[in-house]
């Protein structure tokens, strides 16, 4: 699918929801738990994540792949792993900054 920054998507099989922070220029095969992500208002069929795509997502974490130029923010946690095809997106490990506001 072609992603757009700001778009919100959800897992087709678990509770995970994401917002697209950075979108690649080319369409990508974005999945959660091994199944393609769907629009927020799509029907969801609860299903266990596929083997190898079951590490779960954490609320408030950013998931990215630098090479693909993709970054997602998890706005609701779930059981499946986010991936592009078979490539699992990793938690962006930015060092937290001290409060400044």
């Amino acid at each position: 699918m072609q992603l757009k920054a700001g778009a919100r998507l959800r897992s087709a099989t678990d509770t995970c929801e994401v917002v697209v922070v950075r979108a690649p220029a080319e369409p990508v095969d974005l999945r959660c738990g091994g199944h393609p992500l769907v629009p927020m208002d799509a029907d969801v069929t609860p299903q266990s994540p596929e083997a190898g795509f079951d590490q779960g997502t954490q609320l408030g974490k950013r998931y990215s792949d630098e090479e693909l130029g993709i970054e997602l923010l998890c706005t609701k946690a779930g059981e499946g792993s986010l991936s592009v095809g078979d490539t699992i997106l990793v938690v962006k490990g930015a060092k937290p900054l001290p409060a400044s506001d």
Partner: protein
Amino acid sequence: MNIAMLLEMAAEGDPERIVLGSHDGGITAAELLERSRRAALYFEQSGAKAVGYFGLNSDVLPVTLFGAALAGVPFAPINYRAPDEQLAGILGRVADGLMIADDDEVERLGACGAQHIVTKGELAAAIAEPRSGEHPFVDPEEIGVLLFTSGTTSEPKAAVLRHRHLVSYIISSVEFLGCEPSEAQLICVPPYHIAGIAAVLSSLYAGRRIMYLPAFEAGAWVRLAAEERITHAMVVPTMLGRILSAIEDAGVELPALRHLSYGGGRMPLELVERTLRDMPGVDLVNAYGLTETSSTIAMLTPHDHREAFASDDPAVRARLGSVGRPLPSLEVEVRGTDEAALPAGEKGEIWVRGEQVAGEYVGRTVLTEEGWFRTRDAGWFDSDGFLYIEGRLDDVIVRGAENISPGEIEEVLMAHGAVAEAAVIGIPDAEWGEAVAAVVVLHPGTAATEGELQDWVRTRLRSTKMPCVVEFRDELPYSPTGKLLRRVLRDELAEGVSEAS
């Protein structure tokens, strides 16, 4: 993706956490979301095209901010200190908006042209019961917040911050629910300032309880900080000195306090050192940012402060006067008049690029084609990447063919034992175009003459940078956010020059 999503996430992640008000009886994340949703429906049903906020800080502010976001209309906090004429101009630009106002401001707002005024009490009554309705989809490109910048000229500019700018800033700089439930932030920066908006978003996303002090007074600040076990606060330079003195006078300790961030204007070095000495357990952060950049773009961290304070190396020690390093999510460059990036050590204009950088006013963007925003601030990087701010480019004094930066002379003046505060400005001069003038405030119980301070500057810089006049005052004019109001001094001194001639 809009700023209300940040609240939705907090309410999802820890619904029962108290995020607003007192530790005893404050509002939980889930309650704040519910109130904001009701406010959004109320705003939608009223047909408002924008929601203004006119009055002191209060718990109504976050509800109004998120309510406007959920309704998909801009939130426009307005400076209640603006003179009537300016206020009328601002209100004219949000004419189809609904104004949330303090009771005692209703009459004035009406007289200045506001059509649709709702008091905070009326809003509270309107959202006391559940409302039914749907929230619209809010595109991240839509305007989240409109801020009327003070500007140096008569007409204030309306800076546009879109949802994507503010959200990018928060998610790239704040760790979601990264703080302990015991953390609490005392906010006393004005609601119509970017710092007031960023404080709400940052605290909420971090899970830090927000406690408002409606109007700053040092004694009240210290009392509230003690009662509410405040751990974090943001202060502007004029507040910090008064707070330290109030703590001393009251003989109290603030054992919970562990983090102070400051910004908004030049903090006197001795005040930073005094804070590090008096409160060794408190982390200090110096933040540099602008309205147009969704708040902070560079910061001097607690570690940077302690390292510089402990160092004998003058170059490291000097960092206490810097604003630290740019945030990792941004690019910051110092460029010359030919717009080429300058190497470390050379002074120029600060340019910034990144996802949080809006660089837009109503009706026009000021970003370059490559997405850079020119800050109009003068500064330079040291060889370790620490950024030093020299002041506004517009404040540069042009004496003959020489460009003189007021910041450098002010620093030298403040290094004099008797000088507490200093402002250097350009005044009209028949021979040179502009001449250097200084206005200083002396420490109580000290003395210095004009000639002594002139010599002090001349021997440390050079004769062209020596103020031709030094005025002594009891205080300097500052904006509520701690910015030195040079324009006021320029006008006053220029008047003095024309009267004398």
